[in-house]
């Protein structure tokens, strides 16, 4: 045995600062899940490569022969990129995040965690930070590639960056909580993956490419300004794409672009309700504790 040095605890348990312990735990989970997500080739394929590939396929094949004026083309590419970027963000929030949780459940890792003095909210918060990071990267990956293909992005207002970030955050929180529900019900990462990818692809096409093309939506067009995938997509497109014409459905089919305050408020309600549900499920089902602390 080696000679023992004086050992120190990382955090003094008697320092009376429960928030410090919560913050440490949330950071631990965030770092762990971020490392796992960004190292997983399947996650990177579905969240980054798949949407980028579809974007390239769309502008080179599907739009080929379309009568799009040259001066509108950069904005069309930008609007298309936003819809695919948000699709990638849904995949990141829903599929990748859900699969990660299902893998932990399948591996009985929560048998271990339930014996630790862990805060379920710190676990959920850490997971969500990692999932949000992947979602933002998924959007930026398509936007970056699109800029390389000549897409034109412009910030509509000085507050556009925080608006986009807030919309993305609320959007990701909503879909990550859906992932928590799927993972806790299904528990098998393979089935969870099939279900979440199906939901992501289904919601994308059923809502006219996440609200990017309202003419492809079979329901009442106004609904696109309320649904949790199409509303933030249209909001983000409005703030990043200069020309509305032909882009993210800004004024197509007479559908008004959602106002920033309205859009963020609706998304905030979605996120708040989702967070409450997600925390309750995490406490009750995953950690087997009471719904309330």
């Amino acid at each position: 045995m080696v000679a023992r040095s004086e050992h120190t605890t990382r955090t003094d348990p008697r320092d009376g600062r429960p928030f410090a312990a919560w913050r440490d735990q949330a950071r631990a989970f965030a770092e762990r899940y971020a490392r796992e997500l960004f190292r997983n080739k399947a996650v990177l394929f579905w969240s980054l490569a798949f949407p980028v590939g579809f974007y390239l396929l769309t502008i080179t094949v599907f739009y080929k022969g379309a009568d799009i004026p040259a001066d509108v083309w950069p904005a069309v590419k930008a609007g298309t990129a936003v819809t695919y970027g948000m699709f990638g963000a849904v995949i990141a929030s829903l599929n990748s995040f859900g699969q990660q949780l299902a893998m932990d459940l399948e591996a009985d890792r929560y048998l271990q965690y339930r014996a630790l003095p862990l805060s379920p909210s710190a676990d959920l918060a850490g997971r969500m930070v990692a999932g949000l990071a992947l979602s933002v990267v998924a959007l930026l990956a398509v936007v970056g590639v699109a800029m390389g293909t000549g897409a034109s992005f412009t910030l509509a207002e000085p507050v556009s960056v925080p608006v986009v970030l807030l919309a993305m955050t609320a959007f990701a929180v909503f879909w990550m909580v859906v992932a928590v529900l799927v993972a806790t019900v299904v528990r098998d990462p393979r089935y969870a993956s099939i279900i979440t990818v199906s939901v992501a692809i289904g919601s994308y096409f059923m809502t006219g490419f996440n609200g990017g093309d309202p003419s492809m939506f079979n329901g009442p067009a106004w609904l696109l300004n309320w649904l949790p995938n199409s509303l933030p997509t249209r909001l983000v497109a409005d703030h990043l794409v200069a020309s509305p014409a032909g882009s993210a459905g800004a004024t197509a089919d007479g559908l008004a672009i959602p106002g920033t305050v309205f859009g963020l408020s609706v998304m905030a309600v979605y996120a708040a309700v989702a967070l409450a549900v997600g925390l309750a499920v995490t406490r009750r089902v995953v950690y087997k504790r009471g719904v309330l602390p």
Partner: protein
Amino acid sequence: MSDPALAARGVRKEYGADGVVEGADLAVADNEILLLMGPNGVGKTVLLSCLAGSERPTEGTVEVFGDPVAEDGGESLNFLLQDTMAVETLTGRENADFYSRLHPSFTDRWRDYVEDLDLAGDLDKRVEHYSEGMTRKLELALTMSVDVPVYLLDEPTAGVDLSMIQRFHDIILERYEAGASVLVSSHRPMDADLADRIAVMPDGTVTAVGTPEALMDAVPTVVRVTGTDAIRTAEDHVLGGRLFPLGGEARGFLPPGTAVEDLRDALAAAGHGAPVEAIEPTSADMFNYYVHVREGLEPATRGDPDADGAAPRSVPAPTGGDA
């Protein structure tokens, strides 16, 4: 008398219609190493999960220092659950970083432990590239680095090279000498060397608890038989009708009142001149007797241990950590 460090009373755990743990009673004294010994698949891990507070028993109670384990919230104990602790896609060092932030009483002792266990050079490899033994080393180092009064270790030496087991024991003993209580589950007889007391779990219940000496003393005469035909014949004359093969020989237990000569004569009468001899019981013999033979015997032939610290089939009032 002070409360035991950990006490389970009448713990039953069902999954659907199946009872995995069926009324287990167990107590770990303050500053004691208790070995929970039993074969694979009898519910040791489920019982440990109930004791750790990660599973809620269907029936029964679990207390840590006299308080319900659910109220303790993981402050007083740390649980090593085999094969679930280390995250495969992280390196050993990243795992240490992760767990160091989860428990406020995590210390940097893990650096010494990984040195002791010859794992320091592999900390930057991902755990998915570790052997089973390396994973066990990391799990033990991380678990024992948390400063808590009670440790629950689920088969910590499973898959570990024999040459490394003593170092595992040294780390566990170090915490014990610092005042901790340790409950270790195992199906490796070698781990009996660690224990102040041993609890035997041959099925879903704890059937015998005692000091290693008391349990060993209650093991019937052990005989060694050589030769395939002789072994087959001898099975009719040993307890439980069962011999335990080891290489070209097999070991079994003589019924009370039966001498080695009686068995030798029986084999000779059957035409087997193979050697039969009585031998000193080993930890492996003790394991085989309590886990595989004893429960099938009539109570009168069991030879229950009755020495100091032994308390078969009851919730013991622990006698302390004197080994």
